[in-house]
């Protein structure tokens, strides 16, 4: 098995830390059913809510950003989030694609 895509997201996380920003790594650790990004996909979020990378196809990123900011505010080291299939009501966070994912948040410290 080969992988033709290299996410340079940890390199970017390091740049953010060097610029004195607080950084949370959000990593897809489990998926069930059809999910847009595979296990190991990652995004980073800083205390202002700037983010880079992705953990889904745009379905849950806003919730992940909120949770990451919360983690920094509460000064907690880590947290696990699970996202399930959304019902169809507009703007609700969930995976329209019908999958489920678990995302792990951890602060760089």
């Amino acid at each position: 098995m080969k992988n033709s895509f290299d996410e340079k997201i940890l390199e970017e996380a390091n740049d953010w830390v060097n610029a004195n920003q607080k950084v949370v790594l959000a990593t897809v650790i489990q998926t069930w059913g059809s999910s847009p990004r595979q296990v190991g996909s990652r995004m980073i979020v800083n205390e202002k809510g700037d983010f880079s990378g992705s953990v889904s196809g745009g379905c849950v990123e806003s919730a992940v950003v909120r949770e990451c900011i919360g983690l920094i505010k509460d000064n907690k080291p880590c947290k696990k989030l699970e996202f399930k299939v959304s019902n169809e009501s507009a703007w609700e966070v969930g995976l329209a694609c019908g999958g489920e994912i678990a995302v792990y948040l951890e602060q760089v410290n």
Partner: protein
Amino acid sequence: MKLQTLKSIIEKKKNKSEFAIITNLSNGESEIFEKDKSLSKEMQIYSNQINEFFKLKKNGVIENSEIFVETYVLPIKVIVVGAVHIAQYLVDFSKSLNFEISIIDPRGYFASEQRFPDMKIINKWPDEAFKEIETNENTALIALTHDPKIDDPALQHALKKKFYYIGALGSKKTHENRCQRLKEAGFSGEQINSIHGPIGIKLGGRSAPEIALSIIAQLVSETYKK
């Protein structure tokens, strides 16, 4: 994750070493796993499972545990023969992918620093150049000169070493002649048919970036077939 761990991951990626990150999800502690290095005490009970993930280049949570394993895969070596216009775009496209390109071109005026800033260009004939590069069945070859003097020795090397992807630029006619020469050189029909020629998937475009895109698309698709 500790900043120190983050920094050593980046360092290991730079040094092209194979490793995995092991994270204890219950407390956020993580460590780096390498083939011949022992794990910390608390991770040792998962040693078999971690090795299994590492061998299969798999990411995931170990069953009935709170341990997440993330394996880092080495970049794929891609040898481009011919420092031509298309090669400049191949270099651009591969920047966001996990391909590590080396360019071989004995013609100094093509392989200039100005045309390929920050690129490793081997300004030698392929037979000489391949002495400097370690290649195997995980290597890819893109032959772009359509000059038999330069392309043929590289194609022969790639066939002998069983590269997983071999592509050669040139029209159908050029490719027919090329196949004939390889046949005369003693290569089997099966070997010759494994060469993608004319190179690339059919996109319709004829400009250098469009051809480069069609080549990269074919390379990615062949990478996942294996």
